[in-house]
């Protein structure tokens, strides 16, 4: 039972354009969402997060949008740079639940072409 899904396994975008990564979830208890970037042979690096009390959070080139009614979030990267080429994971947690378990999606591989 995949509670967090990233339906696009890969995405190719031109340098300077916008990258849009999507993530859907099914568990209505999730109330905190995060995006991580992962390069090969490294651990995931935290990018940006959003609480369910917000619908948008921005940090530099990265913006996360949350649509609670649709149980959908997206990550926008503007402008995309070659160094953004990596695998991106969305993750969700239920803050009121005991513990701090993150449930991850399967990842989206982003390739930014110069």
């Amino acid at each position, binding site marked *: 039972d995949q509670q967090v899904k990233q339906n696009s396994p890969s995405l190719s975008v031109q340098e300077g354009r916008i990258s849009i990564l999507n993530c859907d979830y099914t568990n209505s208890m999730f109330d905190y969402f995060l995006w991580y970037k992962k390069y090969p042979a490294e*651990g995931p690096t935290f990018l940006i997060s959003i609480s369910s009390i917000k619908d948008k959070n921005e940090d530099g080139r990265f913006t996360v949008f949350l649509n609670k009614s649709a149980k959908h979030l997206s990550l926008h990267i503007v402008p995309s740079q070659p160094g953004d080429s990596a695998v991106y994971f969305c993750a969700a947690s239920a803050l009121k639940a005991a513990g*701090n378990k*993150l449930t991850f999606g399967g990842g989206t591989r982003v390739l930014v072409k110069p």
Partner: protein
Amino acid sequence: DAGVTQSPTHLIKTRGQQVTLRCSPISGHKSVSWYQQVLGQGPQFIFQYYEKEERGRGNFPDRFSARQFPNYSSELNVNALLLGDSALYLCASSLGLAGGTQYFGPGTRLLVL
């Protein structure tokens, strides 16, 4: 400031053997979580430890165990290794028990032959 550190970086074992993986959290972080990442998938939660107590467990068999020490470092043990245990094992630390951002270490890549 040092981030999350893990050792060893790589490990090769044979079926039936036992393995111990180590993790040191970011200074000041009291919570350590372990995740398993199989190739092509997202990380899967194994355990969370906070103040030396297990606070969460994922859907993994009893062959997997862990502990946390007074300095908040942690060990993950896997007994009776199976081929399917081959994966990247990630450790993440966070400040408190619930909520907040988890910061990951570089991982230990385990290969079981």
